[in-house]
């Protein structure tokens, strides 16, 4: 089932070693790429082990995509429902992911999430409370019990601010607005990363004995997305280029409820907490259509099911005024809504002139999360490259084919901590010094500088938009073989165009120049998604093939791995590890 493509190479001669431009060199034990929940948690853990830690982030501290998480963090504290337990949480996660999750990750996550929540509280985080003063938990899609610890609808902000304020006192060095574009290796081992400072475009080399990728997802390859600009798949693409294996790339989560109108706000997230707090979905005939699609869980079915249901209603001509569904929470009363969903209230009032205490919202699916990413070892988050670890959205495995709401924030903490710990241990047991090959630096500088040297050429924004159109049309919520193959060839044509991107201006905070490199990352990710989506000839979780509408039991026991071969990309099915008897029984409840 291998597929190999022949990606075109940049035009012109390969650079010579002598061509290297000046760059700053910094030495650390552990380099963490990304300062969202996973990166900060990893950095705190590594620093507590006594190793020297640097964190680089593309944005300012505290602005990472984690800040946009709204509804809550899933952990079986059993504060609201005494029957909840890690076993039930584990079962929900595995069923939600259609059982191709890495079961050991789901087990570790369910067992450790409560500790990570209480730890966050000890570090200063606030959570809404039960009447007796314990952490309150709200209902969420496909969680058996009320499980999401939250503070209003801004749980991500609370999480990131708490970690940020903890991390600045932990002896960690921060490099804000710094973009890493290439992982460097010494032989098989990771040896650091190279990139640039956004403010002045100067080049930076981080030499480090271990690297933790915590660079998030890739939602920006789609036009309608809840993701911030940062989600361009850099980490996944860098890991792939360095030879790491990717997994489950075909599974892209469409969140059922993104804003629809006005056009300027299309795709902005409407938290699942609206449904968790009792919101109903209606079609244009004022029918609660989820009663038909999932009579048991109704509006709180898993995200893949709700997203497809809204999509089908719109396709059947029963959509809302602007092509979505109506989401109505007005029956809970203005006071309750303003207390439990304050940022939703504000968001609709200012951006859409809709008062959600008085009228329904219009919502439609929006690209939200990548279940796939870099393949990791469940206990340590070690990738297939020695010294390279990955945690959070950039890593694959916990969520299988569909992530449950609320599992992402605890994912960041549980596996961020484990990755930080493992990276520090790796450093302590691999003391030998590493050599950086100047040729790699010359190659990366060349790739970065070509668009500037070229000046006039393909517009990097136009290339991005073209990719978003391909992904929306051919690799979207509904897929088939012909469309995917067409999408793949369009991506390859676009890759040729991307070799001729030209940008004007200089290296000082030049977004066009930044976009030129991001385009290349995004094209790599898009190709990986499309190739894996072609191979999975069944429908499972977020991956909906209209030419193969049913699940295939054979494919239900494999994950697709994507790796570099030569200049191309190969896809290979690998057996999904199967849980032992005890864990298996938890799935049959």
């Amino acid at each position, binding site marked *: 089932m291998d597929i190999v493509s022949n990606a075109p190479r940049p035009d012109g001669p390969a650079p010579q070693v002598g061509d290297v431009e000046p760059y700053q060199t910094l030495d650390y034990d552990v380099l963490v790429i990304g300062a969202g929940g996973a990166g900060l948690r990893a950095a705190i853990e590594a620093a507590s082990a006594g190793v020297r830690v640097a964190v680089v982030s593309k944005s300012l501290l505290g602005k990472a995509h984690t800040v946009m998480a709204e509804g809550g963090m899933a952990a079986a504290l059993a504060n609201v429902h005494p029957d909840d337990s890690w076993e039930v949480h584990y079962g929900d996660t595995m069923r939600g992911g259609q059982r191709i999750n890495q079961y050991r990750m789901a087990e570790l996550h369910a067992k450790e999430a409560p500790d990570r929540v209480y730890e966050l509280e000890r570090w200063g985080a606030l*959570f809404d409370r039960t009447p007796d003063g314990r952490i309150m938990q709200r209902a969420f899609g496909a969680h058996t019990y009320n499980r999401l610890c939250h503070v209003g609808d801004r749980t991500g902000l609370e999480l990131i601010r708490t970690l940020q304020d903890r991390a600045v006192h932990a002896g960690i060095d921060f490099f804000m607005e710094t973009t890493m574009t290439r992982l460097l290796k010494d032989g098989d081992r990771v040896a650091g990363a190279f990139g640039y400072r956004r403010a002045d475009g100067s080049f930076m080399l981080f030499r480090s004995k271990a690297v933790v990728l915590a660079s998030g997802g890739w939602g920006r390859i789609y036009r309608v997305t809840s993701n*911030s600009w940062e989600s361009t798949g850099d980490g996944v693409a860098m890991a792939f280029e360095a030879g790491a294996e990717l997994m489950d790339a075909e599974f892209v989560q469409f969140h059922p409820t993104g804003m629809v109108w006005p056009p300027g706000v299309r795709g902005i997230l409407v938290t699942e907490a609206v449904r968790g707090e009792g919101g109903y979905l209606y079609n244009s005939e004022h029918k609660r259509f989820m009663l038909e699609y999932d009579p048991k869980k109704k509006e709180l079915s898993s995200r893949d099911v709700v997203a497809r249901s809204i999509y089908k209603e719109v396709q059947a001509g029963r959509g809302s005024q602007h092509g979505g569904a109506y989401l109505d929470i007005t029956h809970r009363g203005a006071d309750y809504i303003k207390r439990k969903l304050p940022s939703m209230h504000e968001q609709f009032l200012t951006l859409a002139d809709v008062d959600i205490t008085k009228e329904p919202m219009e919502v439609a699916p929006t690209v939200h999360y990548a279940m796939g990413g870099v393949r990791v070892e469940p206990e340590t988050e070690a990738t297939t490259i020695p010294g390279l670890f990955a945690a959070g959205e950039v890593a694959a495995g916990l969520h299988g084919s569909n992530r449950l709401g609320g599992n992402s924030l605890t994912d960041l903490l549980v596996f961020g901590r484990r990755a930080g710990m493992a990276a520090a241990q790796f450093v302590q047991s691999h003391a030998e010094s590493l050599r950086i090959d100047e040729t790699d630096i010359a190659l990366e500088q060349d790739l970065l500088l070509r668009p500037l040297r070229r000046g006039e050429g393909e517009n990097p924004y136009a290339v991005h938009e073209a990719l978003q159109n391909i992904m929306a049309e051919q690799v979207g919520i509904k897929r088939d073989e012909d469309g995917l193959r067409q999408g793949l060839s369009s991506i390859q044509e676009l890759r040729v165009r991307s070799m001729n991107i030209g940008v004007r201006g200089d290296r000082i905070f030049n977004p066009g120049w930044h976009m030129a490199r991001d385009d290349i990352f995004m094209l790599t990710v898009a190709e990986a998604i499309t190739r894996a989506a072609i191979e999975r000839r069944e429908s499972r979780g977020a991956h909906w093939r209209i030419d193969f509408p049913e699940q295939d039991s054979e494919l239900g026991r494999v994950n697709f791995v994507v790796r570099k071969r030569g200049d191309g990309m190969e896809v290979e099915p690998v057996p999904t590890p199967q849980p032992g008897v005890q864990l298996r029984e938890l799935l049959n409840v």
Partner: protein
Amino acid sequence: MSSKATNATVAAEASDASSDTAIEETVFRVFRSSDGGGEMVEYRVPAVPGMVVLDAMHWIQAHVDGDLAVRWNCKAAKCGSCSAEINGMPRLMCKTRLDAFEGQEIWVQPMRTFPLIKDLVTDVQWNYEVNREIPAFTPPSDAESPWIIHQEDVSRLYEFRKCIECFLCQDVCHVLRDKDQKSRYYGPRFMVREAYLSMHPMDTVDRTRGIKEDAGVSRCNITKCCTDVCPEHIHITDNAIIPLKERVVDEYYDPILWLKRKLSG
């Protein structure tokens, strides 16, 4: 002030291509920096319903000047990255709709209180240094976890935790903006942080001296400009700064406490 000759043509083409109905143009004047200075440059942007200023900046990047420097992230008013001065008012670009300025030109300038990096992007590093100065949240070492905290405490503190660190309050604060006393006053954002920490039921640090000496709370002269520009509607002056000022007054200028301190050395 200069104008981009190509802009009108680009906008016209865009409107021809996208629909039959005439699309209205909005005139923007955006600060573009150059060596040692800068100027307001005119752009004509086709407006779509619900468009916000940040959308217009993105349109300019994609169609006219790809190197226009804008800091942004979530485009959903949750991260506080895209702060700028719009028609003279400090605001988030992602939350400022064009239809709020119907018929007017829209001027977009960088925050003035911080050093300029380029165009609309300023160097806000100082704020992160201040944050590091504030002693960390420190619960009692023997407190048994999980904690019992009541909703009233959470609700009271929640207002302070809504802060998205957009630094618009810092931008508008007279002490920082006009007097440039950054070495003597942490600014409203960090009064909010100090208020959160000092009112947290589990924090054990005595913060009053730091709030007086290091944070310089008395520098604030209560003009409430910070409260006016806060996109999260935090009552910065009334709920954070004034209680902190009162705390300092109680501790330092209460004659009985003063005497007690004198006697106990």
